[in-house]
């Protein structure tokens, strides 16, 4: 299967993000640190086939979020996300 066909979106990691943040993030608004594009976290391009989860900006393709989990740790890299406006839904 081609990489493009394995693309999901932020809805697919809604449960994972809820575990980490304690609230739903899919309706929240994220800003890409690379290009400044603004959009729902649900609309981020998501790839789950790596050892971790990678979320990329739909506009410029830059990595916005990386998450790797083990049994005892969660590693979260948000350096590609400038800000997240968390909307209580």
């Amino acid at each position, binding site marked *: *299967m081609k990489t493009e066909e394995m693309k*999901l979106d932020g809805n697919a990691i809604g449960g994972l993000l809820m575990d980490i943040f304690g609230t739903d993030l899919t309706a929240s608004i994220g800003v890409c640190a690379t290009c400044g594009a603004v959009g729902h976290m649900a609309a981020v391009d998501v790839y789950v086939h790596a050892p971790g989860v990678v979320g990329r900006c739909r506009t410029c393709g830059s990595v916005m979020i990386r998450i790797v989990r083990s049994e005892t740790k969660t590693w979260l890299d948000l350096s590609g996300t400038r800000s997240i406006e968390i909307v209580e839904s």
Partner: protein
Amino acid sequence: MRTLVLEADGWTGHRAGQHLDVRLTAEGGYQAERSYSIASAPGEPLGITIELLDDGEVSPYLVEEVRNGDRFELRGPIGGYFVWDGSGDAPVLLIAGGSGVAPLMSMIRHRAAIGSRTPTRLLYSSRSWDDVIYRTELEEPADGLEVFHTLTRSQPPGWTGYARRIDQEMLGEVAWPASEEPRVFICGSTRFVDAAADGLVAMGYPPLSIRTERFGATG
């Protein structure tokens, strides 16, 4: 394909369009987790529809093995983006590819349950008539709900509906003009969602008015 009705301890209720995660743990601790859209309306018994993927880790168990009374772990409800609460007067356009109809079915059932008169159209793409999920229910739509089928691989004798993949011409016939500012929910594979969303943007729909949910072929 199988629909399961779940009884979940501590479940707080869901909104139409949300999903849940099923987590299975094998002896030895190996875990597999998959997301399933909730197809039932809020307030109804919790229902999910599972498509069997032969090389899947979770769907063979849920479709072929699980029995009444079995227990497994759930997380949810999940999602605040791909939801429709029945508020607002804007018409609603629902576009489904295959089992992507499940969260849209929750919206359709919710619409009926609350007596909403919001004009609603469902454009539903399936491979064949036998692949149409919730077929009987969709054959008698509630007032103000219009259902358009397209069958992409094979059609029954005398079929008068669409018989091709969703394209610009089809969207032009089914979708409201952008000037009516419809709310749009599209669910299906990545390729399907991209085709439908791009087509609507070409009709003048603002990209942010189009809410999408993509599912992958991991079962």
